[in-house]
């Protein structure tokens, strides 16, 4: 029970963080048809900006300033990069963001070095929020949850209750019509791109110190976020939400379980030596297989439901 509750809380926290990333990616994708390969790089930039800013003026200003900084970079990328490439088609756009991810990673190497930086949890949030069956639940996890939920609510309100949200929703499906009605669709695109980047940046600010802030973080998270978007269904926000939680829970639960195929049959007296390939497969624990599970889930979803959980388009 203790294990279950703690893992549940951690899994939901991680899932919400993933959703912060995948929501921006999904919005940008469904609106502009651009799969932003550099999305996780914005996540990384958010973490590094927060590290730099919190070193000078503290964590709380960083919580606001770092995402804003990332948003500015995102908007500049859309305005001066993507818009130029747009005429060459979607593949060129995708490749542009792919190259951008390379460049951002190298720029991070250039400025902050190759080793992880010491971006820690702020003192105000260091401590225990409550105890479950003797296990401490840190305040910071609770704070991450709070920020994620607030962001979720804010995103929902902006998309459904404000004017710009309605324009965004309309531009998702009928950009020409929206343009004909006199709205500046390229500017909306730029704002959405910047907003998505800001969400990723915010995720970086609160995720960077909960996990680790290093130049490799973008690649690691980026692949998972893509998996989330594929499982949820390309272009579906609700699908991305469900898939984020699913992957978050899957990863959190699996790392703590040392079940293996071999263990299942051990009571029957069947076992394999550990030094062969089959033996490794046989004795492989769920915990060490954890990194592969999201990808396996993706393959399964693709086999049995190619459009994803809640996807509508079948590309």
């Amino acid at each position, binding site marked *: 029970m203790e294990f279950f509750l703690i893992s549940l809380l951690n899994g939901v926290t991680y899932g919400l963080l993933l959703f912060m990333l995948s929501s921006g990616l999904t919005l940008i994708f469904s609106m502009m048809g651009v799969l932003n390969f550099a999305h996780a790089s914005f996540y990384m930039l958010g973490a590094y900006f927060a590290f730099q800013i919190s070193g000078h003026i503290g964590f709380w200003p960083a919580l606001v300033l770092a995402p804003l900084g990332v948003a500015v970079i995102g908007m500049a990328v859309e305005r001066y990069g993507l818009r130029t490439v747009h005429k060459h088609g979607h593949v060129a756009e995708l490749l542009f963001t792919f190259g951008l991810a390379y*460049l951002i990673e*190298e720029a991070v190497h250039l*400025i902050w070095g190759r080793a992880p930086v010491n971006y820690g949890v702020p003192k105000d949030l260091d401590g225990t929020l409550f105890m479950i069956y003797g296990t401490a639940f840190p305040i910071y996890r609770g704070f991450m949850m709070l920020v994620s939920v607030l962001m979720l609510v804010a995103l929902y309100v902006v998309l459904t209750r404000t004017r710009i949200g309605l324009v965004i929703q309309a531009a998702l499906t009928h950009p020409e019509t929206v343009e004909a009605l006199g709205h500046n669709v390229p500017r909306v695109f730029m704002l959405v791109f910047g907003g998505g980047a800001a969400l990723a940046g915010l995720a970086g600010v609160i995720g960077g110190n909960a996990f680790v802030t290093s130049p490799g973080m973008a690649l690691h998270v980026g692949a998972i976020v893509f998996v989330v*978007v*594929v499982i949820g269904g390309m272009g579906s926000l609700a699908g991305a939400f469900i898939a984020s939680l699913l992957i978050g829970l899957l990863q959190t639960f699996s790392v703590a379980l040392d079940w293996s195929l071999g263990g299942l049959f051990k009571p029957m007296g069947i076992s394999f030596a550990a030094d062969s390939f089959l033996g490794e497969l046989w004795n492989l624990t769920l915990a060490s297989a954890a990194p592969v599970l999201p990808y396996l889930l993706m393959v399964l979803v693709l086999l049995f439901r*190619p459009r994803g959980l809640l996807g509508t388009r079948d590309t």
Partner: protein
Amino acid sequence: MNGAVLRFKPLNVGRYVTWGLFALVLVLAPVAFPQGFAITMMSQMGIWIIFALSYNMLLGQTGLLSFGHAVYSGLGAYFSIHVLNMIGAGAFAFPVTLLPLLGGLFGLLFGVLFGYVTTRKSGVAFAMISLGLGEMVFAASLMFPSFFGGEGGISANRMVGKPFLGITYGPAIQVYYLIAVWTFAAVAAMFALTRTPLGRIANAVRDNPERAEFVGYSTHMVRFLMFALSGFFAGLAGGLSAINYEIVAAESVSAQRSGGVLLAAYIGGVGFFFGPVIGAIVFTFFVVYIAGLTKAWLLYLGLFFMAIVMFAPGGIASIVLMNLNVAKHGLFGRLWKPYGWVAAAGLLAFLGFVAVVEMTYHLSDTGGGTMKLFGLSFEVKSLAPWLAALATLGAGGFLYRLAWNRFRGEWDDIQRIIAEKAP
């Protein structure tokens, strides 16, 4: 098609000349550059040429953007090196010369296995799935150390079996010629494939999948076949790399490798068959030579790639062909001067940029101290070199804009003349 001059029935002279020259270059390259590092680099180029061309079977010919192509070359390399070890242990006899073929067959096997799932999608969805599969294989490679060798990888000795005609594959030059022969064969086979009905229909699926379906072809099947065959050639490249390096590590199935082959193919130009050949040569040059000069080589490579994506999406091949077209119409004389100005201004801006990047690197690496750059030695924390570098960059950038506008005007004028000349 403007091949009328060189068409001489029943022999296609142009084609024989091209392929003859290609073979000649492969044979004579070690004679021209007999240094040890040159041989190593050229061996690497051969492997990358096959790898990049196999990648282009997907991106250029079928329109499939893959971010996980290293899986097939990497697994081909792993199986090859295990077979090599088995031969060494005396489990069975198999000529090392034909080992890449085995690597290719394993690449084909995994191409069939993974390709069946992934090619159900195309476009962006395919790209994401290929990335996910690549990550999956990479993560799995760290889970099964007996097969993948964990962090250290699997090493082997290529000098196994009985020497045939004195070929032991001990000296690097023998390995080079092995790679050269396989490169020639693989390039020829991949070129031949573009001329088959499958190669042609793959182009149709790339350009307009809906119409291809209406004509009666299963786009999934066409993509799947191309994918599997591309896996074969990637595995072949992997088998060659196993022989060449005698070690295969998890890095060979990594996202970096997959990204590398995408960069190589795209820089060269995916719209032309020979584009990735150029790309592979440039890419290897970067990886081997520039990487030896500076730690920031990935930054330069990334910028180069971005410049290609933004301004010359046809790659180096398209730039070469456009200029050849100008030369064919006898108008290249008008371009010498503008090109000179662009190159001079570009060089200035480039030097300034390199100086800024290298100084930043030096600063973040060592936190100060003297550094050497372009033969100058200076204190990196002092203001003067930064000002000089930024001024060079600014001036170069400004002049480049002027030169580029002038070049552009001339270029557009020439293109207009050519367009008017055309019947």
